[in-house]
């Protein structure tokens, strides 16, 4: 690569990086603004004090919420990874009657507007006695068509020779799943894991519905609690909340990204 091309590449990278990241930086800036500074259209706060952050912690039990979110998101992520990879594995490496139909059925669940499912699901959870509990917050999300689909696509790129080789070795299908499919798909699993975690982290309406108690409520409810409707929101505090809430997720992406870079493996080796 020539120097010129390199410089050009870096320029494009920096520019697009800036555009992509600007909104987050902007939010970061707002998180330091006091009173009406935001509404006056300032880009850079007058002074960087942590008062907004302190306020954010005061207003709602943010720490408690963060921990709850962490628990809920982690459990959902693990559950989804488990169930999705199992289902995707079945769709790629087993044969059974109605496989394709079932797959389409799975995919079709992605198209169901969740607005339509919310109230009946709430009633289901209520009748199961899962209100205000972690099962109620997590279990309904364990199955996910999206993740199944993602992993199916990934599993399909695994050369069939590897499956054959392990078949011949007398390794059971499940063992093959554990020792070959999962490690090879590490990249996708991490990507999906991050995605699951973040989606769970960002859930608002469902946790709001099924909880009445600060003990199990999550950060997004906390964020909403910081905003007001009719009277002016303190945007500085809200954004401080937002920053606090996205900090763990950004960190996750950062770490995940690192792992992604390492975890690259390619197909079978001839």
């Amino acid at each position: 690569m020539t120097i010129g091309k390199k410089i050009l590449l870096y320029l494009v990278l920096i520019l697009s990086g800036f555009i992509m990241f600007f909104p987050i930086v902007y939010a970061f800036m707002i998180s330091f603004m006091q009173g009406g500074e935001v509404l006056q259209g300032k880009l850079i706060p007058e002074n960087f004090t942590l008062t907004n952050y302190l306020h954010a912690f005061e207003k709602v039990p943010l720490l408690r919420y963060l921990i709850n979110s962490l628990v809920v998101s982690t459990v959902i992520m693990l559950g989804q990874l488990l169930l999705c990879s199992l289902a995707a594995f079945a769709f790629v490496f087993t044969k059974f009657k109605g496989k394709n139909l079932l797959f389409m059925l799975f995919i079709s669940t992605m198209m169901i507007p969740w607005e339509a499912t919310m109230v009946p699901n709430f009633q289901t959870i209520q009748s199961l006695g899962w209100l205000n509990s972690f099962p109620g917050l997590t279990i309904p999300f364990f199955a996910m068509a999206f993740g199944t689909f993602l992993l199916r696509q990934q599993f399909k790129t695994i050369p069939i020779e590897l499956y054959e080789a392990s078949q011949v070795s007398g390794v059971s299908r499940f063992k093959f799943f554990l020792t070959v499919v999962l490690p090879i798909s590490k990249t996708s699993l991490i990507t999906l894991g991050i995605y699951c975690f973040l989606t769970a982290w960002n859930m608002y309406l469902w946790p709001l519905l099924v909880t009445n108690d600060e003990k199990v409520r999550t950060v997004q409810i906390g964020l909403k609690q910081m905003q007001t409707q009719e009277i002016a929101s303190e945007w500085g505090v809200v954004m401080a909340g937002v920053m606090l809430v996205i900090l763990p997720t950004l960190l996750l992406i950062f770490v995940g990204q690192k792992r992604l870079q390492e975890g690259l493996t390619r197909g079978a080796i001839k």
Partner: protein
Amino acid sequence: MPSLNMNVDPKRPSLRKNRFSLASLEGWLYVLPSFILFIIFLFYPMVRTVYLSFFYTDTQGKPLSFAGWENFTTLLSSTSFLTSAKATFLFVLYTVPVGVILALALALLANQKLKGIGFFRTIFSSTMGMSVAASSVIWMFIYNPSIGIANKILNFFGFADMHFLLDPNTALLSVAIATIWMNTGFTFLILLGGLQNIDSQLYESARIAGVSSSYSFRKITLPMLSPTLFFVLTVTMINSFQSFGQIDILTKGGPIDSTNVIVYSIYKDAFINYNIGSASAQAVLLFLCVFILTVIQFKLGERKVHYQ
């Protein structure tokens, strides 16, 4: 040779059946946990929705009396639903191709072997960490006609102020841009993963052949990436049909219903206007519509996809 196939061992059919059902069982076992949850938390509510869509309901969503197709016919003949449908399709049209192409461009960019590329990858995927709600609030400020940065930039380049979210002509587009931004992080990450999974030997081969990079992009990258692309397209399309949060925060469906996409309309009908029957009918229509599109996509798309 059919004649030879007649010559089967008499004990074979039973054997085959046995093995078949056993293998089948194994497949089902893997799928079962997901399937059960789907039934409880998606199919059952969906069936209920379908059921409700044929009823008049009271404001609390209890069916009052059988309505037949009326919820549907009312919808299909109402202009506001047609506006919603149009807005939805336009929204999908704006967000999906551009979003995927943008993410692909970023992924290609970030797939270069350069120092510090990891940093840029993180930056590019960072929007994934933002919740729709948080992102929407930020974009709300960006678009704000009086204080927003968007207008400041326009002014800087000598353009007049724009009323991004307030003008029915630009509102949908503006929401689409914000949506694209929100989705890019994840799409980018998936596509980058796909790119990195392509065997480098193929590129080596192409480099020796001396073909241009655009040629190897078209002939190697795209086909080899096609499973991922297919996935991304399908998913972003479905997601795009279901976009809700950003519309709620940025425009509330306005101005003059120009951003009142079907999902938002469902939300309004169900949770604000308490027209459960109508909301259910819309949900059913949306489901059917996305379903048909997806089936088409699978039928056409998966043929063009090259799995290993």
